[in-house]
């Protein structure tokens, strides 16, 4: 299975890969300069080691025929569910949410990996054989399949991951041609179910949700992040302050600055010009993903490519929206930029899937 076909190698999408590496390079650069002295470089080295692990994962994922991955998606699905349940049993709580599992010295966040499993499961459930059309049953069945892990993720509580899954699901449903009218009905049903979910939550979880909706409920937490992030971004102005001038980031006024809010650090250092470059890079990555999805003939590859691209797009847009103050703050890392092993490895595996689909289009 791992035998590498020369034809496959010729079809590697260097544009996609190159754009990904470019973003990673910017991430490492930002971390390196994040803290004065050794703190920043230590952070960068650790992230680089995660990039190394992620690259191995990328190569492995890309060498395997994605169709066989989709075939065993149910097994992944069960494994993913088991991991999410394990989080409840063995999980470690970090800033109030239980999302991590300890594996020896490293902690591991199953919900990051689950985003990919989610997409594989969708591809398994919603792809069709040539000449067949989708049945109503398989669409409704896929909703049920994704509903269970969705609830588990919400209970962690990892609202961020849950919020990413919703647009991804919507994008895939649009892609396979579900009528907009039906989608609208789903959306309405979802909104109608919200009050029910509300009652299932514990009071402190409700509090946390209310803070998501209205940051000023918690004057010490979220609102502060948003304000400081805005100041950091804005003070970068057009050309940025450079590395040493980035007081917001380096003087630690900005919380979560190497994880979810790393874009603010980047924006302070490199200004609007830098942001423009970065956002064009992300746009290129995402559009390339859509291109791969559009040009694939094989049904599983289509759904898979669209799903992975949608995960990238949704995470990127939601994270940047929250850091720039357009969206309420939820915990979502910026793919390929934020510090964090699980997120980096999962993102690179996603790139691997896209490469794999692209390579096998031309046979």
């Amino acid at each position: 299975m791992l035998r590498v076909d020369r034809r496959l190698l010729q079809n590697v999408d260097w544009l996609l890969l190159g754009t990904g590496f470019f973003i990673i390079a910017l991430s490492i650069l930002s971390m390196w300069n994040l803290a004065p002295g050794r703190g920043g470089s230590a952070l960068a080295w650790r992230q680089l080691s995660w990039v190394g692990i992620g690259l191995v994962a990328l190569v492995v994922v890309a060498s395997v025929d994605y169709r066989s991955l989709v075939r065993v998606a149910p097994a992944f699905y069960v494994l993913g569910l088991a991991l999410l349940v394990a989080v409840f049993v063995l999980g470690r709580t970090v800033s109030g949410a239980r999302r991590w599992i300890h594996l020896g010295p490293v902690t591991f966040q199953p919900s990051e990996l689950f985003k990919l499993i989610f997409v594989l499961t969708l591809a398994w459930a919603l792809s069709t054989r040539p000449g067949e059309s989708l049945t109503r049953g398989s669409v409704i069945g896929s909703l049920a399949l994704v509903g269970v892990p969705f609830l588990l993720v919400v209970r962690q509580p990892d609202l961020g991951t849950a919020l990413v899954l919703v647009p991804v699901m919507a994008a895939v449903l649009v892609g396979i041609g579900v009528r907009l009218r039906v989608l609208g009905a789903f959306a309405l049903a979802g909104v109608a179910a919200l009050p029910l979910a509300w009652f299932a939550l514990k009071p402190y979880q409700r509090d946390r949700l209310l803070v998501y909706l209205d940051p000023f409920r918690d004057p010490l937490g979220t609102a502060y992040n948003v304000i400081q992030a805005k100041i950091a971004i804005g003070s970068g102005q057009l050309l940025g302050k450079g590395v040493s001038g980035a007081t917001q980031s380096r003087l630690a006024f900005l919380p979560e600055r190497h994880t979810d809010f790393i874009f603010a650090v980047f924006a302070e250092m490199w200004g609007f010009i830098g942001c423009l470059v970065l956002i064009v890079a992300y746009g290129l990555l995402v559009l390339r993903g859509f291109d791969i999805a559009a040009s694939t003939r094989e049904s599983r590859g289509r759904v898979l490519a669209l799903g992975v691209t949608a995960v990238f797009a949704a995470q990127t847009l939601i994270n940047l929206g929250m850091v720039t103050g357009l969206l309420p703050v939820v915990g979502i890392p910026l793919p390929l930029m934020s510090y964090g092993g699980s997120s980096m490895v999962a993102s690179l595996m996603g790139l691997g899937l896209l490469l794999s689909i692209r390579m096998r289009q031309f046979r």
Partner: protein
Amino acid sequence: MDLVHGPGGQRDAWSRRVLALAVVATIGFAGLLGQLWYLQALEGVRLQEMSEKNRIRIRPVAAPRGILFDRNGLPLVDNRPAFTLSFIPREMEDRDSVLARLSVLLKVPLAELRESLDRVPPDSFRPVRVRRGLSLEEVTEVEERKLELPGVVVEVEPERVYPTSTFAAHLLGYVREVNEDQVKQGRYRRGDMIGQSGLERLLDEFLRGRDGGERIEVDALGRPVRMVRRVEPDPGAQVITSVDRRIQEVAERAMEGRAGAVVVMDPRNGDVLAMTSSPAFALDRLTGNLDREDWRRLVSDPMTPLMNRALQSQYAPGSVFKIIVAAAGLQEGSLTPMDGTYCNGQFHLGAWTFKDWKEGGHGHVDLRSALVHSCNIFFYQAGLKVGPEAIVRYARAFGLGGPTGTDLGAEKPGLIPAVDWKRHRDGPPAWQAGDTINISIGQGRTLVTPMQVARMMSAVANGGILWKPRLVQRIERADGTLAYSASSKMTGHVELSPVVWAFLKGALVGVVNEGGTGAAARIPGILVAGKTGTAQSVAKSDSNKGQDHAWFASFAPADDPQVVVVVLVERGGKGGQVAAPIAHKIYQAIFLEKVAMVDLGGDS
């Protein structure tokens, strides 16, 4: 209606839809660029200025904890402002020298100061509480040297204050900063003060309120320049308990120097008027800067002051249990008031001899006088007549051997052994006649808690109703709205014929008022009814004779019962000599010194 468009595999349709999604994503990215243009180009200069003088610090404002009141509106605890020393790790430039200075200034071990900083990231600007309850002198010392102590701040926070340091300690419970495990559960922030035992823990959700916060602009030295925004804290809710502060105080005073528990209950509604456990612990010591050594001493104290003996200690009921035997026998018809025997102080069963507590015996006794004088010989025979099955059934009906459900948690269930005449290979040994004899006088494996006995005596006083002990009447939010209210809850009913109830009451009146074992509880003018008990302690050492636990379970006035008083003194000796006088003091205070007794019974 078709859920999906026509047959799949139409390349154009698929590409069109993917293209549409790509357009949506592109619009998203364009929108982001727009926002960035707004922030960096249009607002850039202003935000740049803000970043230059960005010295905004955040300071939490602790919500005052809700107050606990007694049934008459007297406070059981209160709050007062207290000084807390905190570090802002980010601003402590030369950490070692600052800590060394402070250590000398406040006479606190250096390691303790350092430890509090170990748990937080060194670049955090959120204040880390280091020491609570600073004295005014200490505050002055620190404030005077402020410039030499960068990153050290003194904050004012509300703190619990108690009438006396051990007052109702087990009932109220202590308040203490969250520990690491509780922080990990994710419900609290580091530094939060939460109830760790008793009502403070049970009602923490209500009492805690919601902290507010201040955003403060500070200058380069960390001195506040201007308050940017303040969000007021929501104070915690007020709790109106069922406790009567005066009775609680009297009960505690009466138990001074003794180990044991007192429960005072209103038999008309199950209200707990007082609940003491001694020795008690000092609430204020546990709230403040208790060092590890003190804590270890408290936990390993052989007198277990942290344990609430009213709920968490199990004792053999001793002769108090004779009430159950009498009730079972009379109701089932196996005993009559006319039954009599001659007590010579000994009872033979097979090869065994069981003795009465009184050498030489009580002479001629009938059921009533056997209760009044607590004759064991009579009850050995009575127990064999009634049979262990009936005794156990009635004991359970009276709520013995089962938790009373006070909500305080960690309640011990006690034990009424199951009667099983067959021998099982791995189970307990088979029931024997000797076991029946033991249970007849409340010894052997039988175990009860003082709260269970109070519930049982309430049932005797009120004609069979078992109440769930009520500790909290209602909880009112700071704005006056009702957050919780509890009505009295019946958890069981003992069915005895009125004649039997009357007989039992009459006999219990005799125990106190007709020269019985409870004579020490007698109060002229008030008809006290009660039963003494002397329970063999399960405990180790056989060194001295003072090993028995003394019980006195009682209610008054017998013709219209308003209070139940149950006293247990650990290793006190005889119930009539030790426990009954304590109950006497409590009754005296309740009925004869009616000072602040606004409304003793009536359910509000």
